[in-house]
């Protein structure tokens, strides 16, 4: 259920927490892709990174009901 996340009595919307969570995740994924050499197949790196972040956020949000209480 789309609820809130309790951070020591401060209830923040799940989306905010997911946005923060998606940031380090996207860094990790970017490093991984760079290591694999995927970026040589990328035309516009900045655009690609932004798109990657949005996709990660979407995946986190749509699966949140499985791993969030």
């Amino acid at each position, binding site marked *: *259920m789309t609820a*809130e996340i*309790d951070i020591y009595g401060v209830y923040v919307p799940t989306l905010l927490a997911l946005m923060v969570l998606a940031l380090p995740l996207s860094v990790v994924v970017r490093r991984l892709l760079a290591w694999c050499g995927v970026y040589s197949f*990328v*035309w516009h790196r900045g655009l*690609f990174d932004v*798109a990657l972040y949005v996709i990660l956020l979407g995946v986190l*949000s*749509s699966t949140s009901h499985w791993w969030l*209480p």
Partner: protein
Amino acid sequence: MTVSFRSFVRVLVTLIVVAGAVVAGVELWRHYMDDPWTRDAKVRADVVGVAPDVSGFVSEVLVKDNQTVKAGDILFRIDNARYKIALEQAEATVDQKLATHEQAVRDRDRYDKLTNVVSQQQAEQARATEATAAAAYREAVASRDLAKLNLERTEIKAPVNGVVTNLNLQPGDYIAQGSAKVALVDTDSLRIEGYFEETKLSRINVGDPVRIRLMGQSHDLKGRVVSIAAGIVDRERSDEAGLLANVTPTFSWVRLAQRVPVRIVLDEVPADVKLVAGLTATVQVMNSDGSDKGVRSFLSWR
């Protein structure tokens, strides 16, 4: 050739990822903006302000703070000495009026028998006296009943099932007739009110199942939409200036969706859940078959 093929692949890969991001972004937008859920919901209950029907000193308080009471339980008593005396007085008046009436009946009987001796005027007078005495007797009986009612009303009873809360009443307090002194939270009226944005109202129907999550609780409660408010205040307008409409001449560029209360009744409340009027809840309205309302036009992740 290889260079142009390579750049074609590069553009293609990037565009595919961007297209994926657009899809994910649209889904996120739909979920957070269009789905009928809100974090702005409250547990609510009717609060009865219990007031005495008669004035007087409080002689006895029979409930404790936060005590559960049933409809009809006595909450507190008002000193009834004055009302007992009033009843005694009223009963004496009844006896007096009864005696007067009986005497009037006997007099009238007597005058009726002496038809040839007394004048017609005197006979009529006797009948009128009897009728007046009968009326006075009825009036006295009514006064006595009123005194009895006042005496009964010195015991203040709970009008509904509920919980006495914020009790601040001591024996010896003087309370005036009609002043509310005990707040009784009607536990039969506990419900959830979800304040939904007006933009989401079209997707909420009466009877839809609702998932409710109280703040800080780890499991969901189930409920149903029972009704949607029929009106909220128009904030742009006040009608006080000489009976004419007074519409605010400014109109903000950035507007916020107004909130409309939607009344939700709880289907089942687990025993370990303590419902307190005023608690915050998150509610999500579902389809009547229990599935999410979200628009999943081209993706169906859930």
